[in-house]
């Protein structure tokens, strides 16, 4: 077949939609068919894959970590029972409560959970955590990072409450789409306890290589955490008015955590 210029070429910068795919009769040409199937395969692998929590703990070191499981024993249950993914598993709360604490409560605790994309956590959680940590006020007491298996957003409330923290930020894999399977989200909640509403959280989403960078996410999180604490509120009562991140701002690598 002779090569044909792509009639949709000038639109491709404006959209990632699968336009101008061409036709084999009424069906997709083979290359477009296989590309779609690859994207779907990646999205499913992200949902059903496992987070390498050992590697994650090593990447977070020397920051202390603690591993927990939700009440959902496996992926199949997790997908059917969101309520179980929001609660700590049997005995986990007592384990967290028994951890040594300092003289004052933690100002913030980070929870890192697989959510709906293990790929997102494997690819983006360590860098995002480091950027968040680097931008928080130096005098904030940051508790051990909780690494949670089969977790949903509200699990962070349960875990941080057990640790006696004043605030929780949960880093969690977002539901993968066909174009992006490794997007991470952060949910910030003041005064975490079971029963918190979604409207009481601030969300930073779309953290991945083609979306929000780890540094941008860290800057937003630090701003929301400081303002949330100052104003005594997170969620719809706290609008994100963080100034845009400047190129010259230090990144985690350049600024050792004091």
């Amino acid at each position, binding site marked *: 077949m002779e090569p044909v210029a792509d*009639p*949709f070429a000038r639109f491709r910068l404006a*959209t990632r*939609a*699968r336009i101008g795919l061409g036709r084999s009769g009424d069906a*997709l040409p083979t290359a*477009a068919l296989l590309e779609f199937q690859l*994207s779907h395969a990646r999205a499913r692998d992200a949902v059903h894959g496992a987070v390498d929590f050992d590697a994650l703990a090593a990447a977070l070191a020397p920051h202390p970590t603690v591993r927990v499981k939700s009440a959902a024993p496996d992926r199949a249950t997790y997908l059917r029972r969101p309520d179980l993914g929001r609660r700590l598993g049997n005995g986990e709360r007592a384990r967290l409560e028994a951890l040594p604490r300092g003289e004052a409560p933690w100002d913030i605790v980070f929870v890192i959970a697989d959510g709906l994309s293990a790929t997102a956590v494997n690819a983006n959680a360590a860098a995002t955590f480091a950027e968040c940590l680097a931008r928080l006020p130096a005098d904030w007491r940051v508790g051990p990072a909780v690494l949670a298996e089969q977790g949903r957003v509200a699990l962070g409330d349960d875990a941080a409450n057990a640790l006696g923290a004043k605030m929780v930020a949960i880093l969690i894999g977002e539901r993968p*789409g066909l174009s992006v399977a490794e997007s991470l989200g952060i949910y910030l909640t003041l005064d975490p306890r079971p029963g918190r509403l979604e409207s009481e959280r601030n969300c930073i989403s779309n953290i991945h290589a083609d979306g929000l960078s780890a540094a941008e996410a860290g800057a937003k999180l630090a701003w929301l955490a400081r303002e949330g604490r100052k104003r005594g509120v997170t969620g719809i009562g706290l609008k994100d008015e963080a100034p845009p991140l400047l190129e010259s701002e230090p990144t985690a690598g350049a600024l050792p955590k004091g």
Partner: protein
Amino acid sequence: MSGYACSIGATRHAFDDLRAVMACASPLRSGDQLAGLAAESDERRAAAKMVLADLPLAAFLAEPPIPYETDEVTRLICDTHDAAAFAPVKSMTVGEFREWLLSYAADEAALQALAPGLTPEMVAAVSKLMRNQDLMAVAKKCRVVTGFRTTLGLPGRLAARLQPNHPTDDPAGIAASTIDGLLYGIGDAVIGVNPASDSPAACIKLIEMLDAVRRRFDIPTQSCVLTHVTNSIACIERGAPVDLVFQSIAGTEGANAGFGVNLGILREAREAALALKRGTVGDNVMYFETGQGSALSADAHCGVDQQTCEVRAYAVARAFKPLLVNTVVGFIGPEYLYDAKQIIRAGLEDHMCGKLLGVPMGVDVCYTNHAEADQDDMDTLATLLATAGVNFLIGVPGADDIMLSYQSLSFHDILGLRHRLGLRPCPEFEAWLETMGMLDAAGRLAPLPADRGAMPRLLAAGG
């Protein structure tokens, strides 16, 4: 002692109330399990169906699943029930009603006359006794015709919504996807965008852009920006060229409150859109979306199974004479419909139940990446629905919605269905395709040349 029970061998299966019979009789789905309403065993499910089959249809008038006093959807259902239309079937049990619906006596005219006499609970009940092929057979006999600039629901026709979504509402991106869809003959049901931004100003920009494309090529179709009904009212007040008003709706007052709507605001929106008089072949100005699980998701299911809640949403829809209603069947996720088997069953149920109530049903044949389903399953459901006479399906470029992150049908899929099953677009739109030179001698939309005719003409409109 409950009146709802049956004995199978030595086991007696008793059910607390009509709601429990309905929930236990529902084919298994994860949402009812999540709500704690599903039958605990397959035998109990079969027993519930037997109990349900012997109940008189009139029982559903006597015992609404959600009280009249506390739920405006129940009040709408009871207050608009047409006893005269109901008369031909009023002495039947649910099991007899299934047999009558499948009989040759229940033809198009009989079903059309019956629709105002049916309540959503009666329709949900009989669907629970039906196999998939029963759902298709009955749906196929129902005809619900609506119009705005195209006429939908005519025999031998399959319409399609063109869904050109973009994650940042980029006008050039949306225009590109729109043109792509038009080149496959998609868009006769509506060109409908889900906006990323909810501000009225942003919506007006999109409404004006879609209207300009439509007028430039004189396309007989309607456009819609699927924003909240209160935004659409604001857009109309600011003089925007609004064809259709969209809203997501559910089957309980509480779930509708979760969507920020009630019957009063829907009435107000419809009147505002009607006053614009923009339709040419009809004045159906509303577009509703629904989906099993929405009431449970809003924690407002009132102990009613998710399929019955869904059919109650169609009673809300029909009160506003919509042009289009579609269930977004696989969008909600695996905690409500776990896998392709459950999604396919739900899609066929929703279509039949809507049609039987007189609602112009379409289906968004779709799934998310955490459900156990793939494009092969969508091929199956789309084919079943097309043979069952679905009014319209939804198409997105390459089946990949890059804004809502889920998969629906591609433009290719719908075109292929039309050609394989001998179904055609809405007549007004088909005539337009003809004038654009896009149809071959057999009336098919064959692959188009890139260097002449419709393709370069339409592409030039993308700016």
